């Protein structure tokens, strides 16, 4: 299994990825994270909130998918006004990225799926 720091570093170098995180699937706590360019020292860390809520949302998506008899969700994409949040499940953790609107979404998705597969 690749070191989690390596996974996060690789994802964070994909153009358009603002932040990449490995988050506990059950507790929503950050296991590993990249730096955020515009974070302010002493300010509220937006990654903590995003990590917890993205993991929470993903757990609901898993249940919705199961209820619809679709099996395990492969990829979750949340499209917002100023960017996207991507989540992929990888066993006990979820891989979360915050992505700009102009990013190559296909490449981010591919890199995340590969990271999740390598770490499952």
């Amino acid at each position, binding site marked *: 299994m690749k070191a989690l720091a390596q996974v996060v570093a690789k994802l964070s170098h994909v153009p358009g990825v603002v932040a990449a995180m490995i988050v*506990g699937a059950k*507790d*929503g*706590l950050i296991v590993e994270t990249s730096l955020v360019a515009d974070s302010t020292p002493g300010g509220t860390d937006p990654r*903590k*909130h995003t*990590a*917890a809520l993205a993991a929470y949302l993903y*757990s609901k998506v898993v249940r919705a998918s199961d209820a619809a008899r679709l099996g395990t969700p492969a990829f979750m994409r949340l499209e917002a006004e100023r960017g996207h949040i991507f989540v992929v499940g990888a066993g006990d953790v979820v891989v979360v990225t915050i992505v700009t609107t102009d990013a190559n979404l296909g490449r981010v998705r591919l890199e995340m799926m590969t990271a999740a597969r390598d770490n499952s």
Partner: protein
Amino acid sequence: MTDPTVAEPWVAAPLTRLKEDARLISGVLLYPSGRAVGQFGFANAADVMSICALTSAINASARELGRQLDGKPFYEMHHAGAERQVFMARATAGAQEFLFVGVFDRESSFGVVEIYFAEFQKALERLHPEKQATGVGPSGDFEGELNRSLDALFGPIGKR
């Protein structure tokens, strides 16, 4: 889910918000002395009385443990059980200190509870009436204080 019952009306809105946002099953807000300020998820006073006494004791023990192990008190605790989890933390509003204990299950997560507890803490700071900042320290009459607060939450004994 029932709305919170409170001994002090100003905590009702923050408690309701915390309960709903963090998807908590039950929770109690109390003074470190063990006096209950508000609760949700409990139907009888005896349960709240036990929780207040235990939380107060756990908080005192955890602080002392923190001081001995780390040189500073522990203010937050989390216990993950097989089905349910307990979150216990300190909140402050002005000079006043509070303790909160909440229970959640798979409908929530520790990360989510932590986030909304931080917002709850900010709401307490914002809404806390200055006049109530004094007079809530331990009076030495633990049982009396606890019973008075339970009367406020559930009504006097005999009517509960």
